[in-house]
């Protein structure tokens, strides 16, 4: 059937189709705006349903690529290739399911250039899904790089007061990284003669070439993650971006880096990854500890959450470069979980920002009195951010730290400080914003979550708790592919490292 043969293409380009449709919506009045809003919402909802169908149809026991579409374009070397395996499949529903929430949340807060806002987001969705779904490196590059443009516009047009500096910094960092990746991609092409990812995965690059290729890709993904110390663009971008932009940035765009590390760095350059593992561990620990400490002293809610994102991504990079099953499995889980939780946290910030137009922590306090529902929702996500067992935030942290302990106990030892620090910054934020007496004159009359906000946030609450108690849907879908990646990695570098020395008497 043509539909299921091209499911990935449909999911990827349906949003763009929606964007084209929006071009025909004329007028700037409220009716036109509403029409545009509902079209965008409808398109993203259909895309979300299709992505869930994809997840449902995905065969988790199959380690190969599924839903493959393969057409040559420029000779054999570059083609239109789509396909997903356990590594990539879940990022598509993550993206597609968050999108309607993002569109919905903009209904109240975006009032100028509504149509353009929606078009840009729909185009962005295509780029994001495309980057996860494509099996051609040239296309990956286009999609990966393509996400920069809509994001750039989102921050630059609908952003806050310092948006120009933020877009500039965002672009400067990202572009520098991707240029290096582009050079690496070209080098790969000269080496392997193809940009077909399936073929590249079995191609053995000579170790000394791997080193350079690894560095090229690292430059791009380290900025995207972002890893410390390449993270500086992120807090700025988040602070200036409108709520929807922040949500997509934290929930999806950062994950492109983690996905890239697994798909390319670990899988295609295992020797170099092994060689650079300690370097990555050091940066990951720096991310976990340093950015947590920095988060502790932030005065801006969004900046605090942005820094905490960097810390959480530290667990992801740490897990990936252990190269073992738990590490990679945990990293993927952590990315999905963070996609849900960070999105929700930024929505939560958006809720109070829409009301008070300030993100200063100082400006709030005692919100539990006028906003009890908000307090509950915010508490759930705060605890997920802290990594409380029973929330999705725990599973990934646990698995990645377990993997780190096996790889090198020092790494796990330092990473475990994140357990303490995350509690400190997250609970302190909660205490200053939500608890305390409700006395601030400026906050008088602030309203609790309205129905639209409830519709956006409650599903995320449910997912956060569901995946905390029953992470199987995510772990099972990815298990086979993760095993394969870990196995290949172990084979490529020789035996896996072990922390326990031989028993004394054996």
């Amino acid at each position, binding site marked *: 059937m043509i539909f299921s043969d091209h499911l990935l293409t449909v999911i990827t380009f349906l949003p763009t189709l929606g964007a084209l449709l929006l071009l025909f919506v004329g007028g700037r009045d409220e009716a036109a705006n509403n029409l545009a809003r509902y079209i965008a919402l409808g398109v993203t909802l259909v895309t979300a349903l299709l992505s869930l169908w994809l997840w449902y149809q995905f065969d988790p026991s199959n380690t190969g690529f599924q839903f493959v579409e393969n057409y040559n374009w420029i000779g054999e070397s570059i083609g239109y290739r789509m396909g997903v395996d356990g590594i990539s499949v879940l990022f598509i529903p993550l993206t597609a399911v968050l999108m309607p929430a993002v569109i919905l949340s903009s209904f109240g807060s975006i009032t100028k250039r509504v149509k353009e806002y929606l078009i840009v987001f729909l185009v962005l969705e295509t780029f994001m899904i495309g980057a996860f779904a494509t099996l051609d490196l040239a296309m990956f590059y286009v999609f990966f790089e393509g996400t920069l443009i809509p994001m750039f516009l989102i921050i630059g047009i609908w952003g806050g007061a310092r948006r120009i500096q933020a877009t500039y910094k965002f672009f400067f960092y990202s572009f520098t990284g991707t240029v290096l990746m582009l050079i690496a991609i070209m080098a790969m092409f000269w080496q392997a003669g193809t940009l077909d990812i399936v073929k590249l995965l079995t191609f053995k690059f000579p170790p000394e070439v791997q080193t350079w290729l690894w560095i090229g890709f690292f430059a791009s993904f380290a900025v995207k993650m972002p890893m410390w110390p390449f993270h500086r663009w992120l807090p700025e971008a988040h602070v200036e971006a409108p709520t929807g932009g922040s949500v997509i940035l934290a929930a999806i765009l950062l994950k492109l880096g983690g996905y890239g590390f697994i798909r390319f760095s670990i899988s295609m350059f295992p020797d170099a990854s092994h060689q650079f593992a300690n370097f990555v561990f050091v940066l990951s620990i720096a991310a976990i500890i340093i950015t947590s400490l920095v988060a502790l002293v932030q005065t801006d809610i969004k900046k605090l959450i942005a820094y905490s994102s960097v810390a959480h991504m530290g667990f992801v990079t740490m897990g990936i470069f252990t190269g073992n099953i738990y590490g990679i499995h945990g990293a993927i889980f952590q990315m999905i979980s963070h996609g849900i939780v960070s999105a929700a946290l930024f929505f939560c910030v958006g809720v109070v920002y829409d009301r008070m137009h300030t993100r200063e922590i100082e400006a709030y306090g005692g919100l539990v009195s006028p906003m009890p529902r908000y307090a509950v929702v915010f508490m759930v996500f705060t605890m997920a951010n802290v990594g409380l067992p029973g929330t999705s935030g725990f599973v990934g942290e646990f698995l990645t730290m377990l993997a780190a302990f096996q790889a090198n106990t020092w790494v796990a030892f330092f990473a475990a400080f994140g357990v303490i620090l995350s509690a400190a910054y997250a609970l302190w934020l909660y205490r200053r914003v939500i*608890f305390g007496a409700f006395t601030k004159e400026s906050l008088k009359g602030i309203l609790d979550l309205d129905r639209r906000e409830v519709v956006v946030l409650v599903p995320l609450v449910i997912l956060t708790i569901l995946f905390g108690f029953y992470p199987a849907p995510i772990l099972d879908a990815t298990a086979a592919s993760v095993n394969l990646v870990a196995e290949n990695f172990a084979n490529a570098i020789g035996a896996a490292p072990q922390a326990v020395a031989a028993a004394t008497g054996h």
Partner: protein
Amino acid sequence: MFIQAIVFFPLVGALIAGLLGRIIGHRTSEYITTGLLIAAAVLSWIVFAGFWFAPEAAEAGGHAEATKVEVMRWIVSGALDLRWVLRVDTLTAVMLVVVTTVSSLVHLYSIGYMADDPHRARFFAYLSLFTFAMLMLVTADNFLQMFFGWEGVGLASYLLIGFWYKKPSANAAAMKAFVVNRVGDFGFALGIFAAFVVLGHLDFDGAFHAADGLKGNLPVIHFLSWDLDAMTVVCLLLFMGAMGKSAQFLLHTWLPDAMVGPTPVSALIHAATMVTAGVFMVARLSPLFELSPFAMTVVMLVGAMTAFFAATVGLVQNDIKRVIAYSTCSQLGYMFVALGAGVYSVGIFHLFTHAFFKALLFLGAGSVIHAMHHEQDMRNMGGLRKKIPITYWMMIIGTLALTGVGIPGTPLGFAGFFSKDGIIEVAYAAGASTGYIAFWALVIAAMFTSFYSWRLIHLTFHGEPRGQHHGHEAHADHAHDDHGHHGSAYDNAHESPSVMLVPLYVLAVGAVLAGVVFNDLFFGHAEHIAHFFQGSLVVPEELLEAAHGVPVWVKWSATVAMLLGFAAAYQMYIRDPAAPKRLAHANPGLYLFLLNKWYFDELYDRIFVKPALWLGNALWKGFDDMLVDKTITEGLGNRVKDITGKVVKLQSGYLYHYAFAMLIGIAALLTWAIAAGGLLG
């Protein structure tokens, strides 16, 4: 098996009260949660009775299989296969009884105590949520589920300490409790990882089986930069978690502060159940701890140190709840001494009896505070015996049980007499220098315990009422919720309603009888203990025999210490009430040292909190803002901007053009790449 009902009834109650509380109202929420808890408690006692009266036919000391009920899968990855499983063996059954009994009584009591609170439904939801998490902890079948329960009770504790969220002190204490516990969890988490690496299993049976195989052939682990005995590393890391949760020396600072929470919470969480989780954990993992004599020694010394330290601080505190809190801290130290000695059953025995009399004391104190309209400073009390006689007698029973009143060598004594004296005898029998250190620390602590307990009784109930003429001194540091009831508090004092008194009666029965009835099961002959516990914890026969055969002076030592403490309190607070002040003036340094709890809060603030904030600021303003931003990014960027500034104006109006230029650029680069690649390749 009733185990699903026992564990999930409280969860159901929590969800109903939490989600529907507004709709169904406070009263209904209270009845539903309390009713479900009482049902769970009844079922727990039935389960417990099954172990209590287990047929003699069961092989004494044999490893009877624990009952396990699988709920669903949890984390499955690679060789890890962790499931939600409810495990019931004797050790669990003892904990089930403790948790559900105290919890149901506290629920009942709270109906009266919280009657005026506008957020009662939320309060009951939290209480039930706590109970659920605690039950998940004690029924855990693997390390991770235990960790779930562990963190779950931590969350509930956080929510309940901060229940009165308008009080800054409550919010601070709630956060402190969570973060300090997380310091312990730092160790717990690493301990779990180490256990997995060393033993290859995270389910208890698998891990214990693997540990059995290691006997006589202990592996070495490369931990950080050293090669260390693997089991010692595992056990000490796990014990760090226990120290946090059970408020042991160095990680104890959160417990006294937690007293700003509502008093029923203090009774349930910070006396009878949650804080004993560390004790439970060590007992549950006794097959692992047995493999590391060094870790056992550490457990014992930390316990002894805590018992002594907390008792000294308890001597001078003025807040009625803080005195009991330090007492709890101290009694937990006793339990760890028993565990460290390897006589786990006695540690659990004290956990069991302590739950009754400490909950009784806390709820009694709550009744006093209720009567005094939220006055907690004992210097403003006095003479309350006539006003609230029932509470008075209940507190007396609790005190007799806590101080361990009884006649050595006879089955006459209150609950604490059996379990506490048992621990002291075990410490002596354990011998070696550590055993004797622990023994003397505990005997001295027993004397202090008796002193501060009677001091509390005298200050609160005896003498003249001091409420009317509180001096400026009394004003200085009272941490209670100030309602401005001074002066009239004594006159208005009234006995609590029966919904609050009934729980006291039940607990009082436990405080009197729990020792004598269960002594044989926990601290009788080794076969009896082994038969009762059916392999759910390690029972050292020789040490038990030695503990039963200690010299007579050892058996009397705790009783003598108790009498000395009683006499000193009587002398200083009844016969010569000016004596304490004189003593404090004569030794100002020592007095302040104790009053300020050995200055731990100030120390930690200086070496952890302030440096962390300073470092955060330095890294942010110094590294991120100055170095990366100003110097590198903008420095580099400015050069680029100088060149391109004329061409591309970064104003929002030009953004579309700029984006378009990017797109063209990418296309051009890509084309060039393909072309170049095609030519060269």
